[in-house]
């Protein structure tokens, strides 16, 4: 581990950074740094010593070289919507904010790819290519804000990844600045490059391999048509059984999303879609593709839902209705702010058939710890998102939330699943890694990381536990939360 900048080295560090990127691209005053102490995960906080806003790959090369010379760590940051604390600057050091590298460098419709800088917001790319009938398929719920650099780092998914795949399926190549300042390019505009699939390894490395400075991403033709249905169920069990049956019947929906009654309250307050507030759960079910055949699929889905006691199945009749329905779903996390001052989203995965079981378990855990838990998730791929509601000012509640979260995630593992479907390990889930993987597995991962980031200077103490991690993590220099 590299050591953090001390009060003596911090000003020197800031000066070095100013020399590289210019004074307007550096933040170093205490009040300017405070907002960078956390991302979408607010349970742990620590300020970086400096924030830099590079505007080119060359500047990033110079920045990481300077960090090497001065012996300080650095961490890349996109929009800071990580829910796992991926941007937490452990040990301080330099935060490399990529929000000023936001150009769409090229769009090639014939070969169906785009070259973008990492700070491009996911939805900007889709908006940019929409007039030509294309979109960028990974659609995390945070797509209006999160950057594609962040998507690449966390291998983001979204409602439509059930059919279209996660980010890694849509990244053809990456330009990466390694922690020693070398620049490598993996892949490129073409498919199937010979050699090892390094792009596949970099996507999902959560910023622990280096700084992604450019990406070649696939662009996808918009489906010719959609049928979007809303199934209203008396119980969560009925809804989850419907999911299993739909997939069992061989239908591949574009998306299958479940919202339970608590989340419905929040979403309805925010968007007034007209969700039934007395329902046990609703399912958003969408099929897309060629227009011919869609009605047939939709009818089979309605049949299955009815067989599983659906109270009613509604259909989005206009594009505006469809968009409102998706907006309600995608902004559901944020809408829980209406229910409680703080929330903590978990991101477990279970085999689809175990959904009823894990949801019953979550209910029991909520009662045990006296914590309200709302559920909204990508049901099609068994990726659950229990949202635990609390008040961060109450230390006892925080403790109970952490306890409940851990129990839920342990249960996911027990059921044959995992502790993250899409948000990543970050700092939040690091303690689970030894439960998910054998020491040999973890050692292999450390060796792989070492190939890119041998001194662990880039985003230290993320994703892979270091020996004695807990002790190191609570050492002085970590600031208390607000």
């Amino acid at each position, binding site marked *: 581990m590299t050591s953090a900048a001390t009060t003596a080295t911090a000003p020197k560090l800031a000066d070095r950074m100013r020399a590289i990127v210019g004074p307007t691209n550096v*933040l170093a*005053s*205490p*009040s*300017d740094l*405070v*907002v960078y102490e*956390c*991302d*979408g995960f607010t*349970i*742990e906080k620590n300020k970086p010593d400096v924030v830099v*806003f590079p505007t080119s790959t060359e500047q990033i090369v110079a920045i990481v070289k300077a960090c090497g010379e001065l012996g300080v760590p650095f961490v890349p940051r996109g*929009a*800071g*919507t990580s829910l796992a604390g991926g941007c937490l600057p452990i040990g301080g050091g330099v935060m490399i*904010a990529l*929000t*000023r590298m*936001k150009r769409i460098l090229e769009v090639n419709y014939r070969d169906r790819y785009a070259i973008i800088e990492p*700070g491009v*917001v996911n*939805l900007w790319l889709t*908006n940019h290519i929409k007039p030509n009938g294309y979109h960028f398929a990974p659609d995390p719920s*945070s797509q*209006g*804000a*999160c950057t594609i650099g962040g998507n690449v780092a966390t291998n983001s998914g979204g409602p439509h990844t059930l059919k279209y795949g996660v980010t890694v399926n849509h990244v053809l190549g990456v330009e990466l600045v390694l922690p020693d300042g070398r620049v490598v390019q993996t892949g490129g505009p073409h498919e199937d490059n010979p050699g090892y699939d390094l792009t596949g390894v970099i996507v999902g490395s959560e910023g622990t391999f280096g700084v992604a400075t450019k990406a070649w991403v696939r662009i996808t033709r918009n489906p010719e048509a959609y049928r979007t249905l809303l199934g209203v169920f008396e119980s969560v069990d009925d809804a989850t059984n419907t999911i299993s049956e739909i997939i069992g019947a061989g239908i591949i929906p574009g998306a299958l999303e479940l919202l339970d009654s608590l989340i419905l309250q929040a979403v309805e*307050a*925010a968007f007034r879609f007209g969700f039934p507030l007395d329902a046990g759960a609703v399912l958003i079910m969408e099929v897309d593709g060629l227009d011919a055949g869609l009605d047939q699929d939709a009818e089979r889905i309605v049949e299955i839902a009815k067989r599983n006691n659906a109270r009613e199945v509604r259909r989005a009749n206009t594009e505006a209705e469809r968009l409102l329905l998706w907006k309600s779903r995608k*902004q*559901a*996390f*944020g*809408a*829980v*702010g*209406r229910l409680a*001052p*703080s*929330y903590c989203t978990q991101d477990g995965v279970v085999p689809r058939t175990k959904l009823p079981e894990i949801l019953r378990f979550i209910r029991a855990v909520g009662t045990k710890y006296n914590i309200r838990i709302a559920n909204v998730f990508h049901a099609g791929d068994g990726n659950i998102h229990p949202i635990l509601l609390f*008040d*961060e*000012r*109450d*230390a006892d509640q*925080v*403790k109970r939330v952490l*306890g409940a979260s*851990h*129990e839920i995630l*342990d*249960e996911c593992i027990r059921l044959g699943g995992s502790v993250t479907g899409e948000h990543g390990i970050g700092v939040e889930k690091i303690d689970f890694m030894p439960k998910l993987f054998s020491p040999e597995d973890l050692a292999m991962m450390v060796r792989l990381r070492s190939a890119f980031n041998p001194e662990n200077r880039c985003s230290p103490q993320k994703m892979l536990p270091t020996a004695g991690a*807990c002790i190191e*993590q*609570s050492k002085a220099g*970590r600031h*208390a*939360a*607000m």
Partner: protein
Amino acid sequence: MTATVDSPRISLPVTPAKHDAGIDYELFLDCVHCGLCTSACPTYLELGDENDGPRGRIYLMRAVTDGRIELDDAVKGHLDLCLDCRACESACPSGVQYAKLIEPFRIHMHKIGVKKEHLSWLQRMLLFNLTPYAGRMRLALAPARLAQWTGIDSLMTKLGMFNLLPSSLRQMHEMLPPLKAHYGSLPEVLPAEGPRRARVALFTGCAADAIFPETNYATAKVLQKNGCEVWIPRKQGCCGAPHYHSALEEPAKQFAQQNCDAFLPDGSPVDAIIVNAAGCGAMLKDYGHLFHGSPQEEKAALFAKKVKDINEFLIELGPIQPMHPLKLKATYHDACHLCHGQQIRKQPRQLLEMIPELQLTTLNESEICCGAAGSYNLTQPEMAERLGERKAKNVLDTNAEALFVSNFGCQIQLGRYLRDKKPSLTIAHPIDALWASYNGEKL
């Protein structure tokens, strides 16, 4: 189960408040720090600095309130750079009431002596002593009107004579759009055409009336045409927004009081108070909140309830179909105080689409502030210019021949950044277009 954490790794102290800005602390807690608002914020879009985005600004205000950081120049700079456009409120799924945080916080900054912004005495004079008074403003603009018509204006520009003016006056001169003839004054009451469908009062504003008198004229005429009896109270005054947004609460309240008295005299209730400027409308609709907890609250709230934006009112009333075609490719910019402040987006578009042969195209980033934001272009000229240029580019990309916007402040700003780039572009209020189409006049 094992794995429960014995103690969280950090403690969560509730720090005693150092600054009491009179903010309801619970309002801070509505923010769950998700970051979904960041890319809706114009200043964040431009700068990419979390400190200049909504999530960061809320974080800063809370950190100051908690006594974690000083209210230093850096913090003040980030808060002053905020446009008050409220795009963050539209974007926030959690229902954060951003305006209710920043407004009292700014007033507090002002009270404890942190200077709000760098307005020169000349700008202050113009902003607070001239523009809020319709009569004074019209008189002051008379020489400008004359100069523009006689061509002296362009001659002076050519000779570089405006360079001799103090920079703030020069800036204001540059902002001034081509002025049309003032309609003089409308009668106090205009009778309804046909059977009376409503009785409304018209808020004519101050600066707006002096610079774009044609829009007030068109509004009155359109209302008349739609069966409304229009009353223009003579004792009305400025809405108070310039003062309120500059943290001058008292004068804002005086204007509010004046308007409540002018528009709600005893015994002759109107169905609605109509306003055609988004900025004024948002302020008028907020009078209840302005007098919160004081004896005037009830009357102010009644006033606020009656206020309707002209677009909103006409769509609710059911507008009569305009007949004369306006063969134009047009686009529409959402004024912040209309789309974010009043959640009015569809209505002006619906009105424009009623006009025969007018073809409405989508404006990219239509809901991103143009940089006008009240006195913002005087206090933050650099950011105002960046946003003005950004908007101009988006407008030019549409190839539209006409640009509509329901707020005079935006109209001035858009004109400033588009006049030279596309002299043929018409910039007007949707009601100007509607009146032209009713009346068979050219726009």
